[in-house]
Structures are given as structure tokens and as C-alpha cells.
């Protein structure tokens, strides 16, 4: 069963001269297994929308439902919706990694062997070896590892939906690669649906099978990517800065040639371009 948003609106100051309408009449459903990109310019309401979906903010109008029941508590029912804020490593407070990851499940009432099992499973999901990391101090790991610890902390609550606000921001190439791999694995192994907010989604493009475009608090587009070119055109129409690979394909299409069949995976785009250059050289 999906998370369903029904005509959700939200404003920080509902009335008066400082009224700040953030979201306006948003409706969509997120189904299990989907990975949706939530894109939009600064101030479009992306983070607020995630917080409403996670039950952390109450919509001013409309409803958010999980399995047909209106969400009234953070995390939905039994922590089924996990949310990861920007820079989640800044919210780490326990001294060792085990306790940090166990914080959520402990709040769910898990203890003993069950608790240990979910913590180990979560660590495996994010490629952190328990035997190496379990007792490590939370200050003595890299920022990429901290990010994965934070993701593990949410996964340990065994959510069916994961909402991520800029999961790659501030990470170097290798740490970002590790996080992308871990998100891919989580989705494949546990069929967890995700909504990912990203300003520069280049490296996340292969993950997305759906795009939600927000602009000035309104959902102006909701589509599944058919090709790199069509995705680039839709994003450009919505005034969103194009990821480098999509920008490149857009320019190449403008210069001529048939580029409409290539998928949004940047590696695939670069492979295709390289292949065509090679063919061109061969012709000469």
C-alpha cells in the first residue's frame, strides 16, 4: 500500500502580512519500490513536503495517508516512514556506533537479541562491517561513514519508505559512491520506496524511476523518465539546473543527431557519446 498525499497545503504563517504559503494542493502516491527524485528551486517547499510525509509537520489542509490511515505521528505507524535530514551525522549523539544505530529500534521497544539483529542487518545494508565498526567511537569515523551510520540508524527501524533530504551533500566522491550503492542495495533487497531531495542529482540519476517537480509550492510535474533527452527538456522547462550529463545530451541534441534513445544513467550517456566519437573516427 502506498503513502498518499491528498490535496496537501501548508503555510508557516497561515494569515496576516507575513503569510508564507509553502505548499499548495499537493497530491500524489508513492508506491513500494519506487525511487522518486523531488526536485525544485530553492524555497520550493521540498524539505517541508518531506517533513509532512514523515508525519513531523501537520498539513494545514489535506491529508497524508499510509495504507489508507491518516498519518498522525512522526514516522507514520511503527516507524514505517524513515526520514533522513540534511547532514544527519550532525544529529549523532551516542558515544559508540552500536548505541547510535540502536537508538531508533530501542524507542520502538526492541531489546536483547532482536535489537542486536536489526542493528547488524542495518549495518550490513550500508556496508559497515559490524566486527570493525560496532564499538568504534562515533567521532573516530569519516564523514562518509558517519552518513552511513545515520542511514543505518533509520534503517534499523525497518521502514518501508525512506525520505532523504540531500543525502550526498558535503560528501566526497568515494563517500558519495558508497552512499549511492547503499541506497541502491536497500531498494533492491528490501523494496524500500524512497523520495530523494537533491539539488545536484547527477550521481543519483540512475536510481530515479520517477520525478516529482515542485515549483513555488506546487507539484508542476510528476513523470517517469523515458529518456535522458526528454527528462532534460522537462527539467529545463521547470527552470531546474540540469545535471551535467543531461545538459550535455541536450546540447548534443541541439547540435544535431539522434540522441533520444539514451537513458538517464550518466555512465550510459558517456558510453554512448564515446562510442559515437569512435564511430565517427572510424568513418574518417
Amino acid at each position, binding site marked *: 500500500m502506498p503513502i498518499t498525499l491528498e490535496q496537501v497545503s501548508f503555510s508557516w*504563517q497561515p494569515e496576516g502580512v*507575513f503569510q*508564507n504559503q509553502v505548499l499548495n494542493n499537493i497530491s500524489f502516491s508513492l508506491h513500494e519500490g519506487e525511487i522518486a527524485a523531488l526536485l525544485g528551486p530553492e524555497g520550493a517547499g521540498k524539505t517541508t513536503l518531506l*517533513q509532512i510525509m514523515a508525519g513531523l509537520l501537520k498539513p494545514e489542509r489535506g491529508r497524508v495517508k499510509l495504507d489508507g490511515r491518516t498519518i498522525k505521528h512522526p*514516522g507514520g505507524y511503527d516507524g514505517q516512514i524513515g*526520514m533522513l535530514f540534511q547532514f544527519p551525522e*550532525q544529529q549523532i*549523539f551516542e558515544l559508540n556506533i552500536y548505541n547510535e544505530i540502536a537508538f531508533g529500534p530501542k*524507542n520502538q521497544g526492541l531489546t536483547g537479541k532482536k535489537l542486536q539483529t536489526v542493528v547488524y542487518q542495518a549495518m550490513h545494508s550500508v556496508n559497515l562491517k559490524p566486527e570493525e565498526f560496532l564499538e568504534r567511537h562515533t567521532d573516530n569515523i569519516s564523514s562518509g561513514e558517519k552518513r552511513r551510520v545515520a542511514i543505518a540508524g533509520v534503517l534499523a527501524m525497518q521502514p518501508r519508505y525512506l525520505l532523504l533530504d540531500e543525502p550526498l551533500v558535503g560528501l566526497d566522491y568515494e563517500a558519495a559512491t558508497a552512499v549511492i550503492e547503499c541506497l541502491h542495495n536497500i531498494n533492491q533487497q528490501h523494496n524500500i520506496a524512497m523520495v530523494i531531495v537533491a539539488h545536484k542529482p547527477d550521481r543519483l540519476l540512475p536510481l530515479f524511476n520517477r520525478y516529482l517537480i515542485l515549483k513555488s509550492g506546487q507539484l508542476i510535474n510528476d513523470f517517469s523518465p523515458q529518456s535522458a533527452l526528454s527528462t532534460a527538456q522537462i527539467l529545463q522547462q521547470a527552470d531546474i539546473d540540469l545535471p551535467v550529463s543531461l545538459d550535455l545530451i541536450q546540447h548534443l541534441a541541439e547540435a544535431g543527431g539522434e540522441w533520444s534513445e539514451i537513458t538517464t544513467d550518466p555512465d550510459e550517456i558517456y558510453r554512448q557519446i564515446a562510442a559515437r566519437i569512435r564511430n565517427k573516427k572510424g568513418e574518417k
Partner: protein
Amino acid sequence: MGLRMGQYLPLDSPIHRLDPRTKLLVTILLGLACFKAPYPWGIIMVVSIILILVTASRVPLYHYLQDLRPFALIILITAAIQLFLTPGDYLIGYPPLIITQQGIAAAIALLIRITGILILARWLTATTRPVELSNSLETLLHPLKRIGFPLHELLMIMTLSLSFIPLLGEETVRIQRAQAARGANLHTGNLLSRMKRIIAIIVPLLRGAMQRAAYLAEAMENRGYEAGGHRTHLYQQKMAISDYGLCTAVVAAVILIL
């Protein structure tokens, strides 16, 4: 985010256009008058002046009242103490809780005095940027520098502290929500378990605040800030006719009231 308590509200109003020194002076004078004004006519006059200033600021009254909410309990408790513990002509009640005529008057007076002062303070912060406030304090207290008082440094600390308060508020809300997403509900359970959960908020908050303070100090030093150095201001404060007019009117009104 929504509006934060004590936040500067950028509007175009005659009050916003006033020199910050005028607003600071008016706040101090009316604050004193609010505390010392005789009951009931003196207080009524002070409240009337405050209401005129509030209206002229174009900030809706309910924003002022919203910011009073955190103080509501303290104000009510203080008024209740006045109501029940002021000796005088018996009106109603049984010992030890006796309401007297003087008690009612004292409670109403105190209620109005505290509310008036809080609204006045909010009027100042809603219409004046913290930096302007700090600069005007520096100008008004300038003579202290002659006796070696580290005025600029203390005002810099004050300005930075003021700008940190809303940031810390935002950070607290963010961490609270992040931990709530992990099932840390601060509003349920017994006192001990609630206190344990507060650690999940306090630790990252303090760590973040210290880190932010260190970054800020480094950034200031990198831009040539040096404690004790001679400083000038890019924008010089200038008193206009409206500033002199308001100052004169308020000084006259306060003398009349007291």
C-alpha cells in the same frame, strides 16, 4: 520556517524609518514609565502611547501577542500572587486566599506593566535590526570608552549572541524533528525517560553551536577582525526631524505621567 520570537520584521513603516537611537531611548523611557506610572491613569496613558507606537509599526498586534505566549504563565502567576497576597479591604475568599480591593488593583496594574514592557521590547526588536541596535548602544554609551570600558567588544558579543538565538532555535527544532523521526517522543513517558531523550537533542545542539562559534571566530579573524581595534561604520546614523519630534513628545509625556 515560521517567524521566530524576537525576529526583526522588515516592513515599511514610520517606526522602521526612525533612527535606532530614538527607538532605544523611547523604549527605555517608556519602560521606566510603565513600571513607575501611577495606577490607573498613568498606566492608561503609557499603554495608549505604546499602542500608538505599535500601530505605527504596521506589525499586526497579534504578532506581539503571539510572542507573549511563552511569558503568559509567569505573568499570570505573578498577577495571582499580587491578587491573593496584597493586604487591604476584604472582598471575597477564605484565608489564606483572600482577594482584596487593593489586590485586584495590584494584579491588574502588574499585569499591564509587565505586558506593556514586553510589548515595548518586542516593538524595538521587530522594527530594529540587531546590528543597528548594537551600533546605537555603542553611540549612546560612547563616554564609557574614555575610561577604558571594552564597549565595542561587549556589544559585539551581544550582537553575536542575539544572532545566535534564532539559529539555535532553528537548530533545536531541526534536531528535535530528526530524533522524533527515530521515535524519540519527548512528550511521553516518565520524567527520567524524557530527560534521557533530551540528551539526544542537547548533545548535537551544543556540539553544533560550539563548532559554529569556532567557524565564526575564524571567519572574523580571516577578515581582519581584531579585538580593541579602531572601527568606523559604513552607514552613519542620522537623526531626522521625526526622531527629535518623537523624543521630545515621549520625554514630555513621561515627565507628565511621573
